[in-house]
């Protein structure tokens, strides 16, 4: 198990390196930041000075070498726009995105597992059908549309919740609710399907022949076996949230990583884009390793 995690960590570092190279050069292809940053009537000399100041006049390989050198000293460079270390800007955005993602995923997990398991136990019944319909709608409705409709209903018509921004706990309600819907719809389907096949397993028959009651039959004997495919999908969905729910954050004016990334790309704030992508990648790699560990905890056959 430890060996497996070690291998995963090394593989992750390599992919991180590849990702950094890719993003560094690709972002330089988008154009010259000097043109965007300086006023439209800036002289060529001003542009030269700007480039020289930020090292943009040097050959691109040299720029890359300098970037890697700084990176090895944990210096991610400065944000052009904010004139602050890029890493600070990114981590600040994460202090908003991380709780948003964690709270949403926790709610999704509890709701999807409980409802999906119960739906599978009485398959074809009223409750099962209700869960299926709700989840199908949830998984297929576009989140930007739900976000806008939710603002119209709850903020504008009823005036219960703020339309956008942050500041009070109430500001979190709509973003979490909107982000909740799609992963919930997807995961509840996976839990239901996985539970259905697990309930047909031979060991469930053994448990019934032992006289095990229904509740432990579902939540002890079956659920743990059914969790393995669920965890994989859950990891995927959590990664999407960590990546920054770009559209939802933008609609709600939520200062998270998704919004930061979009803004920085539009302004060619290379260092922030690179840093945001790398920090996100590290977060996703860590989460994948956590998923591997969860697999091992749930299934003793994987531990060996």
């Amino acid at each position, binding site marked *: 198990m430890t060996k497996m995690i070690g291998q995963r960590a090394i593989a992750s570092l390599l992919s991180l390196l590849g990702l950094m190279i890719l993003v560094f050069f690709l972002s330089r292809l988008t154009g010259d930041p000097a043109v965007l940053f300086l006023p439209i009537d800036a002289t060529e000399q001003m542009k030269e000075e700007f480039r020289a100041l930020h090292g943009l006049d040097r050959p691109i390989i040299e720029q890359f070498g300098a970037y890697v050198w700084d990176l090895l000293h944990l210096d991610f460079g400065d944000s052009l726009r904010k004139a602050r270390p890029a890493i600070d800007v990114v981590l600040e955005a994460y202090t908003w995105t991380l709780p948003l993602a964690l709270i949403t995923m926790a709610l999704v997990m509890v709701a999807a597992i409980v409802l999906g398991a119960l739906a599978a136990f009485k398959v074809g019944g009223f409750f099962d059908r209700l869960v299926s319909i709700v989840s199908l709608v949830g998984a297929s409705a576009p989140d930007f549309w739900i976000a806008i409709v939710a603002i119209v209903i709850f903020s504008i018509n009823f005036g219960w919740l703020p339309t956008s921004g942050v500041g009070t706990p109430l500001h979190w309600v709509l973003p979490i609710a909107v982000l909740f819907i799609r992963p919930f719809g997807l995961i509840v389907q996976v839990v239901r399907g996985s539970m259905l096949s697990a309930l047909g*397993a*031979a*060991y469930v*028959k*053994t*448990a*019934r*022949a*032992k*006289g*095990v*009651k229904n509740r*432990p039959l579902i939540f002890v*004997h079956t659920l*743990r*076996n059914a969790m393995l495919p669920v965890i994989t999908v859950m990891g995927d969905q959590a990664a999407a949230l960590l990546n920054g729910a770009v559209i939802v954050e933008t609609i709600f004016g939520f200062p998270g990583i998704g919004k930061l990334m979009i803004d920085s790309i539009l302004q060619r704030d290379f260092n922030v884009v690179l840093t945001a992508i790398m920090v996100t990648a590290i977060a996703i790699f860590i989460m994948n390793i956590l998923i591997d560990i969860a697999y091992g905890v*749930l*299934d*003793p*056959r994987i531990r060996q």
Partner: protein
Amino acid sequence: MADALLEVRKLSIDFHTARGTVHAVRNVSWSINRGETLAVLGESGSGKSVSASAVMNLLDIPPAQIVSGEILFEGKDLLKASQEERRALNGKRIAMIFQDPLSHLNPVYTVGWQIVEMMTAHGRPADAARARALELIARVGLPEPKQAMRKYPHQFSGGQRQRLMIAMALMLKPDILIADEPTTALDVTIQADVLALLKELQAETGMGLVLITHDLGVVAEIADRVVVMSQGEIVEAGTPRNIYHNATHPYTRKLIAAAPGKGAVKHVDAAAPVLLDVQKLRKTYGGFTALNDVSLILHKGQSLAVVGESGSGKSTLAKTLLRLEAADSGAALWKGCNLIAMSARELLGVRREIQMVFQDPTQSLNPRMSVYDLIAEGWDIHRLIPDKVARRRRVAELLEQVGLLPEHAQRYPHQFSGGQRQRIAIARALALEPDLIICDEAVSALDVSIQAQVIALLDDLRKRLGISFLFIAHDLGVVRDFADTVVVMKSGEIVERGPTSLIFDNPRHPYTQRLLAANLDPDPDVQAQRRAAAGRAGA
């Protein structure tokens, strides 16, 4: 019979499926008392497990529907009892064990937890349950019960897992134990041990044992009474001896006649040219030696059986010869050329000459391909018979050759029975006109009566087409009927080899002797004699 502890009375159960209603059991009655052993004998689809599942409330309703009848336990009809009453009975008064203990144990919990749960689920304190579990794990013959409690099902062997299932079933000292094919997935020597254990435990606890099986040998060894089931009905009931010698129903007679190991033994034609010469074949997986310098010679037209228990290396031998696994060292001369060292291009030609028939045709036939496509696929690969009309004619011929009909060509595998599917697999192998067919447990998944038919078919093909067979099997009766030469494998080595008659009549290696002794004879008298002889030897 009014005072039987458990009585199934005139039970009829239907299954409502998409393809219509199946009468799974019709008017079935049997009963059991403490201390008795009742065998329910039948082939797959006979409904032999259904009444027992009904007793345990394990049927899913729907699709199942109990049409009529009663299940009386201590005179009370279980079918009228509440779900909670029935749950409380399960495990406590009537316990059940199953075929294939690996899938019937929960893979993610320790066996200790699962055994203890048998008592905690019925409200007993956990520490008392743990003490009883330790005692029972030791009783069923597992070393180091304390360590065993902490291990998971996959860390045990098949025989050990079934012992653990038995320990679990006995936790609450049930009055009746229902065993559904408890030894079917096990090797013969392990089967003998597990049956002996069940008998001992029955003598100690006085429980009644309901044994559901397809194996006449198991019935002969253990049962006091037997009911024979066919197509959902009990066609015959009586003592094993009575049924074996004086069966009146045609189905029972057919079943007894189909029991393998009764025909004339075949002899080798040593003058035939050598087809395959395996020399010191070796294969290791990490530190585990699967094949340890295995050598054997196969003549043209010969049927050579490789006999051994699971883990003996017999399947690895087949895979290595087919180059599905790479050998570590050694040679296998096929018509003089070394199979092991052949290039991919040379191998392609040989692939046509050596075909394989696998154990489970449900898995080895692609469910999305029609029978025609399955049989004709090899011709595409080897660029044979390009003409469509000729192909269709040849497929029809092949289907007739294996006892199917030409119009079956357009159907898909799921539309056939297990025996028919294995015939399709054989037709597929024959399509390429091979010189050698390797059969890896090709008849072990089939019912006894079907098994006899498939063996007869293979033997006919050998005689008519001169095809050689490498026949990998664990069932000695089948081997005796089909093979002319036998090699016995144990732990990756050949421990004994010789003509079939010699191996069966005069085995020299202790392991071969043990295998033959553990092989159950369908005749209850033969089994009784063997038990008496073993008893004398033991005393």
